[in-house]
């Protein structure tokens, strides 16, 4: 995308600031999620604490973007691509801020899960889904940076994989709980972690849709087949024996 410069140079600078800030927030959110999962898998309480305190940076980033975006709207009355760009950054920064919250929430559970140290296999599923969510996040941030509609579609379609993985992880954790009730507390925490990661995938999809809107000016169709089946899963008595 090669846009001409604005006649008013400082307008370009203001828009560029928003783009840079999103990239910065995106990198930060990625790191938080990565570290939160690592802290969980390695029972690293110190790292978990760092993730928790790092969330403030994302919150501040979002507030800064909101303020700057509102100033631009008031001062410049952006039109067309500029308007979509400004509205887009407001939306994306709010998604990134939520991703940070979800990462923080995972980090908060590290202590509880560590207390009842689980076998490694329990974490494997969590790691897999986290890797996928992080790939989504990375790709969608690339899509934003390069304004690539193609990349957007890839991200959007891949969200199904996360949903499917989440459903299978849900079943797996349920099985561990049925095997040994002493697993219940840790597995419940891990279930929330898995849910958080699945939600991170959803936010990545939201960002993908926003990028699509920024680039094309039209909205992607709302319906997307959902693979998350966990709302229908019940404990089947027959599998217990």
């Amino acid at each position, binding site marked *: 995308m090669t846009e001409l410069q604005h006649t008013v140079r400082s307008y370009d600078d203001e828009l560029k600031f928003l783009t840079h800030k999103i990239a910065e927030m995106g990198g930060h959110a990625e790191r938080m999620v990565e570290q939160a999962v690592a802290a969980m898998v390695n029972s690293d309480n110190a790292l978990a604490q760092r993730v928790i305190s790092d969330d403030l940076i994302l919150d501040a980033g979002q507030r800064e973007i909101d303020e700057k975006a509102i100033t631009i709207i008031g001062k410049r009355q952006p039109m067309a691509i500029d*308007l979509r760009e400004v509205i887009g950054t407001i939306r994306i920064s709010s998604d990134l801020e939520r991703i940070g919250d979800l990462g923080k929430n995972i980090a908060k559970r590290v202590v509880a899960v560590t207390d009842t140290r689980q076998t490694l296999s329990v974490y494997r599923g969590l790691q897999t889904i986290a890797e996928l969510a992080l790939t989504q996040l990375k790709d969608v941030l690339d899509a934003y940076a390069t304004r690539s509609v193609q990349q957007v579609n890839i991200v959007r379609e891949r969200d199904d994989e996360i949903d499917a993985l989440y459903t299978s992880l849900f079943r797996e954790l349920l099985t561990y709980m049925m095997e040994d009730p002493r697993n219940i507390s840790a597995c419940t925490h891990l279930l929330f972690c898995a849910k958080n990661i699945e939600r991170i995938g959803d936010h990545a999809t939201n960002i993908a849709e926003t990028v699509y809107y920024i680039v094309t000016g039209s909205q992607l169709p709302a319906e997307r087949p959902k693979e998350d089946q966990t709302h229908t899963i019940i404990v089947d008595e027959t599998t217990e024996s």
Partner: protein
Amino acid sequence: MNLMTERNLEKAVNDKMSAQPNAIKMQGKDVTVHYGDKQALFGVSLDVPEKMVTALIGPSGCGKSTFLRSLNRMNDTIEGCKIGGKITLDDEDIYNPKIDVVELRARVGMVFQKPNPFPKSIFENVAYGPRIHGLAKGRHELDEIVEKSLRRASLFDEVKDRLHEAGTGLSGGQQQRLCIARAIAVSPEVILMDEPCSALDPIATAKVEELIDELRENYTIVIVTHSMQQAARVSQRTAMFHLGNLVEVGDTEMMFTSPTEKRTQDYITGRFG
């Protein structure tokens, strides 16, 4: 203020709901305009839908005012001006030699950039047109036309006690609304506005914009404006001109959020030259 917004909203919803597109009131087909050796318009074809506001935008010298002025043959008054192509009003060629230009300009009225009231009383400013066109049978009917026109231009309440004072004594915004009342007085079908708010302050501008919104219930309006925001606010269709060509025409909402043409986008976002 709330009432105004609600009414606008209702109107906007109705506009969206009505599946029937508005009939074409005026139509330009392959219109070319030369001023002496210089060509100002290069084959512009544009439909003006009935009872809608069509905004013409584009940088200075793009031909938007030239096109506007062709719609009621104001260009005829310019020495060396040559017009080609075809412009119709209700499917009737307005450049047909049989057309009475005075009558045409009564049907297609015009409001200019700078308010230009006659150096006469407020009453006379509005009464002049109906009188020369013989639209009123007597003094009583003339009074009625003047009051109705001033009311439609949202000016009556402000001037009712001084109808016989000079029109030039009004504020800029009031003068512009007086000129609109004067244009309305001869019951035109189309009103052309050439940057009607460029000499007005924001409050007077808002009043004129509100007036434009009301007027489109009864009139077809074509407005030339340099303010993107104004075009976005008052019009339903927007046509973008550049270097004497029509670049793009479409629903105003679409034009200002996602125009198809790069030149439109560059212009409305302030990336031009």
